[in-house]
């Protein structure tokens, strides 16, 4: 049974993880959550990403969402933004592919070329 007490116990651990997160580079994963994305399965993709990060105990990556990017037919879309690297947009995502993105791109730094639909140089 989950209770608030249990959550309270996480507080210290949480503070530690936040400090760690502040010190590291701050990778961001963004899921498109427009109507088009949701209809194409963006929620399941988002839940798979969270689950995979949780399983791998990755605390220094932020998962967030955005609206429709105008690429509705390629939804669900997942963007991976790593500081100092081009923004990578993956298209036609599924929960399985999203998990692979975490393993390959987030953990090992290997972009999965066959899922990439856009690459954008970011100005830093």
């Amino acid at each position: 049974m989950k209770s608030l007490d249990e959550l309270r116990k996480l507080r210290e651990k949480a503070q530690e993880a936040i400090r760690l997160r502040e010190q590291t580079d701050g990778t961001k994963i963004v899921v498109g959550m427009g109507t088009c994305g949701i209809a194409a399965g963006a929620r399941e993709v988002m839940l798979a990403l969270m689950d995979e990060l949780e399983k791998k105990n990755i605390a220094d990556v932020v998962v967030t969402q955005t609206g429709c990017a105008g690429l509705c037919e390629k939804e669900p879309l997942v963007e991976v933004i790593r500081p100092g690297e081009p923004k990578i947009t993956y298209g036609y995502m599924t929960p399985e592919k999203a998990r692979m993105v975490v393993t390959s791109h987030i953990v090992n730094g290997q972009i999965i070329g066959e899922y990439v639909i856009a690459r954008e140089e970011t100005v830093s």
Partner: protein
Amino acid sequence: MIAVGYNIGDKMRELALHVLDLVQNSLRAGASLIEVEILENTDLDQLTITIRDNGCGMEENLKEKVLDPFTTTRTTRKVGLGLPLLKMAAERAGGRLTLNSEPGKGTVVEAAFQHSHIDRMPLGDMAGTILTVIISNPRVDLVYRHRVDGRQWEIDTRVIKDEVGEDALGLPAVINWLRSYLEEGQKYLYGGAITDEVFG
């Protein structure tokens, strides 16, 4: 465009996905507090979903337009389908959608359904919808209140933030706690074990 609309409509097979979609409208309206309330009353054969936000609200003329499947305030997409789709879903299931909005104050959307109607979409994965919203929008406060006949369950992210802080919401251990907590809430609502602690 109609073809696109029907295609998307076909894929929105859970009311929980419509809720996720409508919450996006509240986020775009700059809301800092979003309340999602689901009331299921089997005696009265009713299911109502209410989404209330404190976002920028809408003027009267925009209110009419957003219920029309051919309008959106966004420019990157030509059809804004969230509200019209839910309206259709409600009307197909013996219900209706009402929209109240005041500029500067916020918006309230209420979708009512006949609970037992054969065309009433299943509620679907509400735990997944709420978890998605909480984790990907840590700055926004969310209240999710759900009543099924005599049982009520509620989660308020302000209480959680008081415990672990806003920045902790995306941490693996907190996601894990939230996921289990939400899933247990759903079990409780539909007749599972009674939780020993309820928010609110």
